[in-house]
């Protein structure tokens, strides 16, 4: 954001200010002109106030001393013993309280002293009333500095006296504020005062014949180009007041001609450049694009190649400067210059900004910081007329004439604003009169057509185009504090359910409840990571889209899986943590043909290292498959997921200790132990566990709970030992039992798995406990036997299983 320094003393030239500086800063700040800080020039004056002599008497024990009772506001009153003879009751004076640091008036006026209470001839004196010397304001130490009687008692002295500079940070839509006069207009609008326009020469623009020719060769990049020809110019130092103001605003004083161009730039926000007219080849100034390969040695001594798209100011033979940014070394005014071509132009801002950035000159060039915002072309004749006047007055110049090339003047911006719209947008009623007053203060011309205001923007404002722009101007002048503070209300809105975000939040809370910590990592990852998630380097997910111009390859592909990010997070943390249990909920981006990636919200969980560290309760315990299973189980139950289809194995996971679960042909989850070679590649323990769930699939098969009364009839238990061939999945056994025992079997629990001499070779025995219950009646043994028979029959037919 562009910044300018506004010395208050200079600001006062254009607008009367009767409020303390801190109040001025607040008024500007609250109307949209951001005041970063108020810098005081000179001595700090901490704890120095505006005081009033409330009472005065002679010191009882000292002929030359007086006792002054000083009131310095807010009920604060102190007695001071002083030798000054110029005090009277009612005098307004600077009062420094105990602890303040001021200049020592008795010495050279440079050393500082800190005030402490002191008895003077037996009477306690607290603080001091000050002379100009003690304030660092001059040499006078004959008496106390008498202040303007109208100053507010109790105000901080720095607020009402001395030099202050406002540091203002401007918004890019207000290039008209890039000059002190622009700020003055704002102050005038806020305080309702008039602006004192600076004295400007009214130039007559015509032709200068051969004496000076102006040309715009790129009308898009340069919208206006004017120049004045001045003779009899004397170089030398500029007046002391100008040098002081330049310095207060942060620029160096150099020479009267350069100083005047800088002064006008600071004053009006419009840069200008002076050339030695006698040294212009062909007595021509042109705004043109740099030729291919053209070079220029700029003022700072650097020989630069001018990139394509650089606008230059050139004479008949060569480039003299980079337009709007930096002049060339050779084009400067010299001590022997007598005829000056003073150029003032308006440029399209973005081109200037781009060139400044490409050349790395943006920060140094005060001119480019202004031009980059696209100034109003109406500033050109104003700035030129002002500079010419100052050059006449202070550099002995005479005006030979002026030219102005303005091929496409912008039409004046006129905007229609229905008065009712103001209240609709701001929420507070504003009458046509209030709105007109606010706009007029800002320099708008305001007319009325019924209920519609017709406002014409002041010529220097480039940011006014639509009614909302006017509403903002009205609001900031009438005050944003007028806007009421209300919660939106109205008829009850239609309640729209958002099941996916709600499920997401439930899962998040569940996992935190299980003791895991949530992590948030970047959605853009290094595509090379994807090949590191499988044992053989085959891709675990489809090749992702990649960003064309990433800031780095480490963040160049929207991730099609969360796993790599989780492994990376685990890797970093396991360097200093004994164990890690983390999860992340984020979209995975699956590329699609000729379309943006599909975003699938995924829950990814990782457990690795020590679940518990050794203590008196027991030794270290590492995370194991049961921990992962417990989480799967907990989620399944909480979300009421149905029995999924389960297939052993999943990409990137340990082939014997992992599983893919799906429901209705949609993948619901993959989980299990990470493939140990993958774990090794990421510096993780061989026993690391991963769970990944697809939220959309979870949502589509999540069950609805239905509360039910406790069962009325007792359960019956049967234990069976079922023998199957080795390799037969237990899951099929369980499913067969549930299918055959439907209606009566409410649970099947695996008690034991046995291989050994009591079972045929190549076979495994599963011991299961079945629980039978009927909702309608107490089951008899016969009922249960019948069910067991159906079950054993099914096991035999379907799986060739026998009962032991």
């Amino acid at each position, binding site marked *: 954001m562009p910044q300018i320094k506004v010395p208050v003393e200079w600001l006062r030239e254009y607008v009367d200010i009767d409020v303390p500086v801190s109040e001025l800063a607040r008024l500007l700040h609250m109307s949209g002109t951001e005041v970063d800080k108020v810098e005081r020039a000179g001595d700090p004056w901490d704890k120095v106030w505006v005081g009033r002599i409330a009472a005065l008497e002679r010191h009882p024990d000292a002929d030359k001393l007086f006792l002054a009772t000083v009131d310095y506001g807010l009920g604060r009153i102190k007695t001071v013993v002083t030798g000054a003879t110029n005090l009277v009751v009612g005098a307004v004076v600077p009062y420094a309280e105990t602890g303040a640091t001021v200049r020592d008036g008795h010495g050279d006026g440079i050393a500082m002293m800190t005030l402490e209470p002191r008895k003077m001839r037996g009477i306690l004196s607290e603080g001091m009333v000050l002379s100009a010397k003690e304030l660092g304001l001059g040499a006078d130490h004959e008496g106390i500095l008498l202040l303007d009687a109208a100053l507010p008692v109790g105000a901080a002295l720095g607020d009402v006296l001395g030099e202050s500079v406002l540091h203002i940070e401007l918004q890019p839509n207000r290039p008209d504020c890039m000059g002190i006069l622009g700020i003055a207009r704002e102050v005038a609008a806020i305080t309702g005062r008039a602006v004192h326009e600076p004295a400007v020469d009214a130039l007559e623009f015509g032709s200068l014949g051969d004496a000076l020719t102006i040309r715009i060769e790129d009308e898009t990049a340069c919208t206006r180009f004017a120049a004045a020809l001045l003779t009899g110019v004397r170089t030398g130092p500029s007046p002391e007041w100008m040098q002081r103001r330049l310095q207060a605003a942060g620029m160096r004083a150099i020479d009267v001609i350069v100083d005047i161009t800088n002064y006008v730039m600071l004053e009006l926000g419009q840069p200008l450049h002076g050339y030695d007219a006698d040294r212009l080849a062909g007595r021509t100034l042109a705004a043109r694009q740099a030729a291919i390969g053209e070079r220029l040695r700029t003022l700072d001594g650097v020989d630069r190649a001018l990139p394509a798209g650089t606008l230059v100011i050139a004479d008949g033979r060569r480039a003299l400067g980079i337009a709007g940014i930096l002049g060339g070394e050779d084009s400067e005014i010299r001590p022997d210059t007598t005829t000056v071509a003073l150029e003032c132009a308006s440029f399209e801002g973005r081109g200037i900004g781009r060139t400044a950035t490409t050349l790395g000159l943006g920060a140094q060039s005060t001119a480019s910081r202004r031009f980059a915002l696209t100034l109003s072309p109406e500033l050109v004749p104003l700035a030129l007329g002002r500079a010419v006047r100052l050059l006449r007055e202070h550099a002995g110049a005479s005006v030979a004439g002026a030219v102005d090339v303005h091929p496409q003047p912008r039409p004046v911006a006129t905007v229609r604003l229905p008065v009712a719209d103001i209240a609709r*947008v701001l*929420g507070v009623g504003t009458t046509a009169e209030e709105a007109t007053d606010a706009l007029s203060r800002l320099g708008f011309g305001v007319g009325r057509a019924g209920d519609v205001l017709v406002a014409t923007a002041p010529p220097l404002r480039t940011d006014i185009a*639509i009614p*909302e722009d006017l509403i903002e101007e009205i609001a900031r002048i009438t005050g944003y504090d007028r806007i*009421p*503070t209300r919660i939106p209300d109205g008829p009850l809105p239609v309640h729209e359910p958002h099941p996916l975000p709600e499920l997401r939040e439930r899962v998040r809370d569940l996992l935190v409840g299980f003791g895991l910590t949530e992590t948030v990592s970047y959605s853009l990852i290094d595509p090379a990571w994807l090949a590191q998630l499988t044992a053989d380097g085959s891709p675990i997910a489809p090749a992702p889209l990649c960003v064309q111009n990433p800031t780095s390859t480490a963040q160049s592909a929207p991730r099609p899986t969360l796993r790599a990010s989780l492994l990376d997070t685990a890797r970093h943390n396991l360097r200093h943590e004994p164990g890690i249990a983390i999860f992340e909920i984020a979209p995975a981006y699956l590329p699609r043909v000729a379309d943006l990636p599909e975003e699938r919200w995924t829950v990814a969980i990782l457990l690795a290292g020590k679940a518990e560290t050794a203590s008196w309760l027991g030794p270290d315990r590492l995370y194991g498959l049961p921990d992962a299973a417990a989480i799967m189980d907990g989620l399944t139950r909480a979300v009421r997921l149905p029995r999924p289809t389960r297939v052993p194995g999943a990409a990137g996971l340990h082939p014997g200790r992992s599983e893919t679960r799906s429901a209705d042909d949609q993948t619901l989850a993959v989980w299990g132990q990470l493939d140990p070679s993958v774990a090794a590649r990421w510096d993780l323990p061989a026993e690391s566990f991963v769970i990944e769930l697809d939220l959309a699939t979870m949502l589509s098969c999540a069950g609805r709970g239905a509360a039910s009364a406790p069962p009325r009839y007792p359960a019956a238990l049967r234990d069976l030992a079922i023998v199957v061939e080795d390799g037969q999945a237990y899951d099929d056994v369980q499913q067969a039992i549930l299918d055959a025992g439907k209606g009566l079997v409410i649970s099947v629990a695996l008690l034991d798995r046995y291989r050994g001499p009591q079972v045929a070779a190549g076979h495994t025995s599963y011991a299961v406990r079945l629980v039978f219950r009927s909702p309608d009646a107490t089951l008899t043994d016969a009922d249960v036997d019948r069910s067991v028979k159906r079950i054993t029959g099914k096991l035999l037919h379907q799986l060739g299983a026998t009962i032991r």
Partner: protein
Amino acid sequence: LKGVLYSFARQAFGGERQVRFRPDYFPFTEPSAEISIDCFICNGAGCRTCGGSGWLEMGGAGMVHPNVLRNAGYDPTRYQGFAFGCGIERVHMLRSGTPDIRLYEQNDLRYLETTS
């Protein structure tokens, strides 16, 4: 807009918070505003947290610019809306005392476990 922002500021930082709503500029809102709260560390006196100003900037806001509404397919003569944005890390930093914004992207358990 103002009510929503003030309500959030007070819920997040205390009911006695002073809230400041001042004009600002964004290309996509008009009128625009900036919302700040008085520094809850020094109560407006000025300290390191608020850089001496006594105020902490929360974020920007404003009425959605009619061009934005139009580009999104809404008729600006029939609809208007407000928008606001603030750095959520910053709000959390202020409330929690997190010392460095980079902690939010590092996923260091030693930091994560101090937040809740």
